């Protein structure tokens, strides 16, 4: 699984409230980059057990990626299945990869984008433009009583695709910026900037939510 992620400093400050590391949460069976690639080559050579091991290792992280990108769990399940079927069809082919997970998430990215296009959501996909909806979200009446997790999901779904993807791969899946850059076909600086913007956006929303809650308490 991802190796580039380091424990954030916030963890050191308040370990009781913050996750240890994003990557530690998403990997069912942690595999080293070499191991996962070796397993993939074994699978290509016909070893089904290797395929199962890879599935177990990446099931959770890939599932979360699909759910968070597509915003729809049932659709995410279908796409998730399609991705694994597609991966299995590579059996017998001669494919050279540096890392299996890079290939897996690149395939997943393409499937998710296709799905968004097919569902007419593509017209509303903004890749880098930032719709100014943060204030709208926090001012919505029902948000005042919303669970913070639900708020995060809604806010996340309104982020531009590239920011959302960078943020998800960074925070949920736990990849380094370089690894994300490989998947997204861009450079690490771009990915960092996107993830920072996404984080900033979400933080603003959470600040507003916290102020609302604090205001309620004071009242």
């Amino acid at each position, binding site marked *: 699984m991802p190796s580039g992620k380091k424990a*954030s400093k916030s963890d050191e400050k308040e370990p009781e409230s913050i996750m240890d590391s994003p990557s530690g949460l998403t990997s069912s069976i942690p595999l080293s980059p070499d191991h996962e690639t070796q397993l993939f080559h074994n699978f290509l050579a016909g070893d089904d*057990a290797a395929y199962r091991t890879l599935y177990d290792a990446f099931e959770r992280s890939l599932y979360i990626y699909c759910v968070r990108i597509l915003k729809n769990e049932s659709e995410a399940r279908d796409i998730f299945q399609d991705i694994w079927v597609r991966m299995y069809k590579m059996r017998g082919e001669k494919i050279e990869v540096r890392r299996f997970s890079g290939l897996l998430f690149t395939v997943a990215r393409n499937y998710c984008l296709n799905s968004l296009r097919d569902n007419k959501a593509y017209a509303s996909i903004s890749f880098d433009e930032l719709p100014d909806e943060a204030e709208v979200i926090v001012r919505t009446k029902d948000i005042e009583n919303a669970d913070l*997790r639900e708020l995060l999901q809604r806010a996340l779904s309104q982020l531009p695709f590239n920011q959302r993807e960078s943020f998800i791969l960074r925070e949920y899946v736990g990849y380094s910026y370089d690894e994300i850059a490989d998947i997204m076909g861009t450079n690490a600086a771009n990915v*960092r900037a996107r993830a920072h913007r996404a*984080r900033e956006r979400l933080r603003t929303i959470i600040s507003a939510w916290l102020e609302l809650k604090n205001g309620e308490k004071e009242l």
Partner: protein
Amino acid sequence: MNTTMTQHDRISSYIDNELTGEQEQDFLISLASSDTLRKSFRSELVLKNVIHRDDVLTEPSRDLRPAILGVIGVGAAVATAETADAAPATAVMKASGFKTLFATKLNTLITSSLIAVSALGGYTVRTAITPEAPVQRIVVSQPAQTAAAKPLEIQTPVEKSTDASAALSSAPAKSTASRSIAKKSPSMQSQGGVNTPINVVGSNTVNITTTKKK
């Protein structure tokens, strides 16, 4: 606005561990002095916390694995059998962390309780028994050795012995010494030209007679 942007970037960089030592110091000083920065930082921590919760709660269902592996045809039977353990592996890992911690604490508590109870029980029993119990003293009396009366016995390797291991383990050292004594200085065993019978265990008994030089 620009200041806010910079602060956001600094927080993100701090979270990503990308600040140099000096920048980090500056950031921490700013954090201590700026309410706005503290609020933003708090939001970041809350965000991390929510992501963590969200991550934990987003689980692929248990039937997904056997379904997908079944569709593909990759050892569906095996997959089904493994599902109970493998599919929710992460959930188990997360839960097991707490369970392990709890179990460890509990075990420690139980063990220390048991030790305390047994120690207390032991002390009680000892206190109850001690007054009545007479103090037993074992006196080991060593018989006075009269070297002169006893013939000198020299142990030699027991070729006839059936206990080979005993012969290998203990006999040689003693016998070697004995042999060397017997060969090199027979006068040591025979004081003042007195005939001393030497019993050689395991072999024939020989009498060595020495004469004192005049």
